[in-house]
C-alpha cells in the first residue's frame, strides 16, 4: 500500500472522529436527568439561595437555612451564601435582593462560628 493511501485513510479516520465529537458535544449532546443541585447554572443556584434568604428573613432560623443550602453538597452554608452574594453583586441584582442575601451571609457566618 502506498504511503499516500495510508495517509488518506488516517485522515479519513481523524475526520470521522472530529465529526463524531462535534456532533456528540455540540449538535446533539447527551440529555441528563436526575441531576444533583451542584450542577445547576450559577443564576439558578443564586436564585435558590435568594429564596432561602427570603424565608430566613421571616423565620430567623439559621439552622433551617443551612439545611436548605445543604443540597449543594460539601461546601459550608456560609460559603454557598457568600458565592451567591458575589454573583448577585456582579450581575446587577437589585439592592433589595443583595441586602437579603447579605443578611443571610452574616447570619450563617455567625451561626457557623457558634457551632465551631
Amino acid at each position, binding site marked *: 500500500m502506498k504511503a499516500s493511501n495510508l495517509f488518506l485513510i488516517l485522515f479519513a479516520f481523524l475526520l470521522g472522529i472530529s465529526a463524531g465529537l462535534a456532533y456528540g458535544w455540540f449538535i446533539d449532546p447527551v440529555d*441528563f436527568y436526575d441531576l444533583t443541585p451542584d450542577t445547576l447554572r450559577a443564576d439558578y443556584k443564586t436564585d435558590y439561595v435568594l429564596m432561602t434568604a427570603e424565608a430566613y428573613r*421571616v423565620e430567623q432560623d439559621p439552622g433551617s437555612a443551612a439545611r436548605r443550602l445543604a443540597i449543594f453538597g460539601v461546601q459550608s452554608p456560609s460559603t454557598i451564601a457568600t458565592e451567591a452574594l458575589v454573583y448577585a453583586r456582579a450581575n446587577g441584582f437589585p439592592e*433589595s435582593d443583595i441586602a437579603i442575601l447579605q443578611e443571610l451571609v452574616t447570619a450563617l457566618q455567625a451561626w457557623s462560628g457558634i457551632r465551631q
Partner: protein
Amino acid sequence: MKRSLWLFLTLLCALSLGTGVGLSYAWVVSPRSLTDSQPAALRSDFKDQFRAVIAASYAATGNLPRAQARLTLLEDSNPIEALNAQAQRAIAVGEFLQADQITALALALENEADFPAPFSLPPTSDASSPGNIDSTVTPFPSPDALSFVFTGTPEIVAGQTIEATVILNTPTPRPTRTPMPTYGAPFRLVSQEAVCNPNLPDGLLQIVVYNSSRRQLAGVKVIITWDTGGEEFFTGFKPELGNGYADFLMLPDTSHAVQLALGSEIAVNLVPPVCQTPGGDPYLGGYKLTFQQP
C-alpha cells in the same frame, strides 16, 4: 478501477469508524460537562426540595408571580398537582409546616387571587433580576433617621424635701388575639349522604374536600369529635381515592360532628346508620361528606 474502488471503500470505513469512535467518546466516555444544568433536570427529591423552598419563600414574601416564575423552571406538567402531591408526602413524614406552606402556595395558584400569605412584607419598587419580578424588602431605617432622647437624673440638694409621688395602679391592657391567616372563604358542606355498602368497612365516614374550582385539596385538616373524644386527620393520605379524600371509622351508636380546621360548616349528629345486606343481615353503614369552597 478496482484499486480505486477498494481505496474508496477503505476511506469510507475509516471515516465511519472514526465517527463511531468520536460519538462514543462524546456520548459515553466524556459527555459534555454536567454544569449549567436547569432545575427541570434535577432528581425528583431535589425538585421536591426546590418546591419546598419556593413555598417557604412565598410564605415569607407573599410574592405569587415570583413563585409562579420559579415553579415554571421545574417544568412540571401540572405544578398544582405536583405541589399537592408533595404536600401529602410532607404530611406523611410529619413535616407539617412545610406541608402548610406548600398547600398555601397550591391554593394561591389555584385561586389566582390576592391570597393572603402566612406572612408578608411590604413590596419595594426595585426591579428584580431572575424573572423580572418585584422583590419584597422593607429597608431598615438609617441611624440618622432614629431619634435619641437623653434624660438626666436630677440631683438632690441638701435640705430639699422630696415629695412622695402617688403611683396610681392602672390596669395593664390585656393582650389581644392576633388574627390567624385564613385560606379564603370557609368551606360549605355541600352534601351529606348515608352510605349503605356491605363492601365498605362498618361505620366508614368518607370526606372529600374541594376548592371553588372543584379540584380536590390535599393537606386539609379534618376535625371529628364525639361525646367522649375527638380526632384530627388530613386529606390526601389515600391519593388513589383522590387528593382531597380522607376517611375515618365511626364508633357505633355514637353521634359524631365533623368540620374542617380551615373553617367550615359543621356536619352534626352523624350516627352510623344500620343497613341490611340483600340477605337481610344487619350491618353498620357510613356517611359521605363533601365540603367545597364557595
